[in-house]
């Protein structure tokens, strides 16, 4: 123990290694804490917004609530129209000052600001009433969220709820499931390069230490003493790194809180992991590192005079890739059947298996590349690199493991992202782009007519059937064709009442649909059917004149807008028809692009960190491999080998396996990405699988990272003096 400390005090290389071990452990610990904390962040959000999940808990309730998503200027607004059904106190969640009575409004601070700075007819009129307070952060999903709670006498489309208070929230919806999946994938992707970094740092001293310990053993030190010495040396770095990592996780979580997700950033406290988790990670990390160091020493300790061993890798390692792929796809199959939480776990296990298999198989590919070049070298640098790769593929590959994993994930992400893009909610094209349509209208539309001068188109939904109970009928919209044509895509009217459909209607019984009580009427015996191709949702339009008894009945209101009056019309619709669901193209696109932005941002951040970490790990490992062979290189330089040639050989040595294995990793990434996409498609139900040439971009990035890492050999190599052959 004292010897270890003395060595540490004097030997610069041991110091460097200790610092690097500390650095690796530090980064690993704070990354793990961060990623472990992500579900906490989601939970915190879910807890704060639990009051929004009260609907559906009972058939009768003290209040009625209509929840809708609205948007203004590209920002999402969460809107709650509420009305009380009975007298007495109503429970509200923390952050909600009081239950808003009719004519009272609660806004989130950000929305209140926005309302203050925007003309009322564009935004403020959407929230008719007196502002009685602002929502506290305890009731908001993220800082700056736009939320409104509007009190009414009666909410037309309201659902009963006991109050504005929920239990503890659950975040397991699709969107959050995505983040959950991302953080778990991230855990694998980021921790592997950290491990490589720690392992390479530990190896920096290992070769030297092995020799020193062998000498100590010969001098009569007991295996126990030797092991204790190693443990102490590694422990200093590992424990220091772990402590630093925990300390660093704090400011780190504040940076993370600035990364937007699902429309907003986080509160700083969101990313704080549970103390027990912190303690576990902080203790486990150094224990693992020290255990690894001791295990690595067992060889030396047990055989003091161990000769250089030839490390053979067997080709069966390649089979593990096939095996892992099999596991992965079985997982996908299972996940498609099972659903729920176990779905993610199974897929993640498969993913981990593939990543692990890549790392296992890497040396085999490395050895193959080496053998290929040994067969056809022309220059000494190719010979040196080739022999090194085939001679000790495990050591040659070790450093690039992080880069390989990053490339694997990168290609996976690039395969998935465009595919996911085609899956996120999109405009279905039923309505013209300039149309805003309010669905589920039971309201009196007179206030709307007063509030806006824009033309208002009223429509009634229903179905036409033979009247038989077994006949589902066809969904139709009743309205004045000329007006409806302003909203609906692909509808061309001609004078005179008619039915617009692609085929004649079966039956003549019309039954209205929508939130109000249904009424029936009969179509005339004779009418004209004119061609209408139909859109995805609306196949048939019935001229209002054919059903005169339905006049005045409304279940949908649409307004064709101009860019100038769009916000005002939107505001008028929302303000005068509280609780309606608006179909406005902007809203849907907004939702979809938020998800894509989030995914892209998370991927880019994760992969950048992975690439940098992988690069550092590869650089340390490359430098370590030079230091390990310092005497050989010293002898070569003494015998007149130009440093240039050695540098060249070393660069090849680092680059060639990275190139070969990243190509394989890229292939695996594409296959796995397609698999995950299949799973996602199963969840969403649509989407294509476009593969762009970009999926091979990670290979390029991986090579650049490897090249930079290889350049780290340069200074180390120049630091070697020809007299080093005699060192130690």
């Amino acid at each position: 123990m004292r010897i270890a400390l003395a060595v540490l005090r004097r030997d610069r290389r041991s110091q460097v290694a200790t610092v690097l071990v500390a650095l690796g452990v530090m980064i690993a610990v704070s990354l793990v804490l961060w990623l472990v904390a992500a579900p906490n962040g989601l939970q915190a959000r879910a807890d704060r917004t639990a009051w929004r999940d009260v609907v559906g808990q009972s058939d009768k309730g003290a209040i009625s609530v209509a929840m809708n998503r609205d948007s203004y200027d590209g920002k999402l607004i969460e809107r709650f129209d509420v009305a009380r059904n009975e007298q007495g106190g109503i429970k509200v969640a923390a952050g909600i000052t009081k239950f808003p009575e009719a004519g009272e409004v609660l806004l989130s601070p950000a929305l209140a600001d926005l309302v203050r700075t925007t003309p009322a007819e564009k935004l403020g009129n959407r929230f008719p009433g007196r502002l009685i307070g602002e929502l506290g952060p305890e009731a908001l999903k993220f800082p700056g969220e736009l939320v409104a709670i509007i009190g009414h006498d009666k909410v037309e489309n309201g659902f009963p709820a006991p109050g504005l208070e929920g239990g503890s929230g659950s975040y397991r919806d699709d969107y959050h499931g995505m983040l959950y999946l991302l953080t778990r994938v991230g855990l694998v992707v980021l921790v592997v390069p950290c491990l490589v970094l720690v392992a390479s740092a530990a190896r920096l001293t290992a070769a030297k230490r092995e020799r020193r310990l062998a000498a100590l053993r010969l001098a009569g030190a007991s295996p126990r003493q030797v092991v204790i010495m190693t443990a102490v040396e590694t422990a200093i770095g590992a424990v220091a790194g772990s402590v630093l990592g925990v300390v660093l996780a704090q400011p780190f979580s504040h940076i993370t809180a600035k990364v937007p997700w699902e429309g907003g950033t986080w509160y700083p406290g969101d990313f704080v992991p549970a103390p027990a988790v912190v303690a576990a990670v902080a203790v486990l990390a150094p224990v693992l590192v020290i255990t690894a160091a001791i295990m690595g020493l067992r060889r030396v300790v047990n055989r003091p005079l161990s000769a250089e061993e030839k490390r053979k890798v067997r080709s069966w390692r390649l089979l593990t890739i096939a095996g892992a792929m099999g596991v992965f796809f079985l997982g996908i199959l299972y996940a498609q059947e099972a659903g729920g939480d176990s779905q993610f776990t199974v897929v993640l296990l498969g993913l981990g298996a593939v990543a692990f298999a890549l790392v296992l198989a890497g040396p085999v590919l490395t050895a193959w590349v080496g053998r290929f070049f040994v067969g056809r070298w022309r220059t000494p640098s190719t010979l040196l690199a080739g022999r090194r790769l085939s001679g000790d593929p495990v050591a040659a590959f070790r450093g690039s493991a992080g880069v390989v994993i990053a490339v694997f994930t990168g290609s996976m992400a690039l395969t998935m992202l465009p595919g996911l893009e085609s899956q996120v909610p999109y405009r279905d094209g039923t309505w013209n782009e300039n149309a805003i349509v309010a669905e589920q209208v039971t309201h009196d539309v007179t206030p709307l007519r007063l509030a806006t001068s824009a033309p208002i188109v009223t429509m009634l939904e229903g179905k036409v059937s033979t009247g038989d109970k077994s006949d589902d009928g066809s969904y139709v919209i009743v309205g004045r064709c000329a007006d409806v044509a302003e909203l609906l895509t692909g509808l061309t009217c001609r004078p005179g009442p008619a039915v617009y459909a692609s085929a004649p209607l079966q039956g003549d019984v019309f039954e209205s649909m929508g939130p109000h009580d249904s009424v029936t009427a009969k179509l005339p015996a004779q009418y004209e059917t004119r061609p209408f191709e139909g859109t995805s949702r609306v196949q048939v339009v019935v001229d209002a004149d054919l059903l005169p008894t339905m006049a005045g009945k409304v279940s949908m209101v649409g307004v064709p807008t101009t860019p100038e009056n769009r916000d005002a019309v939107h505001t008028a619709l929302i303000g005068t028809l509280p609780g309606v669901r608006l179909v406005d193209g902007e809203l849907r696109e907004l939702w979809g692009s938020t998800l894509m932005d989030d995914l892209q941002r998370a991927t880019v951040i994760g992969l950048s960190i992975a690439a940098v970490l992988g690069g550092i790990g590869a650089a340390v490992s490359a430098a370590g491999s030079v230091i390990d062979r310092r005497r050989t290189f010293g002898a070569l330089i003494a015998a007149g080998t130009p440093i240039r040639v050695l540098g060249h050989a070393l660069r090849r040595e680092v680059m060639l396996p990275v190139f070969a294995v990243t190509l394989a990793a890229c292939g695996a990434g594409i296959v796995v990405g397609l698999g995950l996409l299949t799973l996602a498609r199963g969840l969403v139900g649509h989407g294509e699988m476009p593969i762009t040439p970009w999926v091979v971009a990670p290979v390029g990035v991986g090579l650049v990272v490897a090249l930079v890492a290889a350049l780290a050999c340069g200074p180390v190599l120049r630091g070697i003096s020809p007299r080093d052959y005699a060192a130690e």
Partner: protein
Amino acid sequence: MNSVLAARGLVKTYGEVHALAGVDIDIKAGDVLAVVGPSGSGKTTLLHVLSGILRADGGEVFLDGRAIGELNETGRSALRRTAFGFVFQSGMLVAELTAEENAALPMLLAGGSREESLGAARLWLTRLGLQGMEKRRPGELSGGQAQRVAIARALAHRPRVIFADEPTGALDTRTGQEMMTALLQAAEETNAAVVIVTHDKAIADRALRVVEIQDGRIAAGVSA
């Protein structure tokens, strides 16, 4: 006959320590010079300065009458791989390369083609009694065999001078003598001069000349 390698007034200091304090030496083609002396007397330093691994602080080394002190590191490096050959204490072979590749390495580095270099290497390995072991790695050779590969490596590119720093240090007496025999024979065939640093009296006795170093000076130059 003119000296292949000559040194005049070589001085090398490490801070306070005068590793070399004015050494004159002349080495002719085919010469076999043993450098002996107590530990720390400056033998290795002399070898390094003579071979251009180290630059002298004073004095000059001449190869074929040309001062090598004027060359930069690239030039001296080129000199080392063309004009000189080295045999180190424990072989210092490249662990990943086979015996023949190790032996061919200096020729390859000097720009020799694959066939030519490997051919010469194989020839020398055979002469040194290593036929059949060309494809072995250093780890699969005995200490004496590895040292003979090192001799093949030092000779394959037909250098003018071979430097050997305690080449028998890691070998037992008999193997050491065998190695010496091989080295001297091989050097004779190429007419290369040999400078060999050794602690071993029996090894030094096989040299044509023995130079004894003490505190960085030549204490006695004994010609055989």
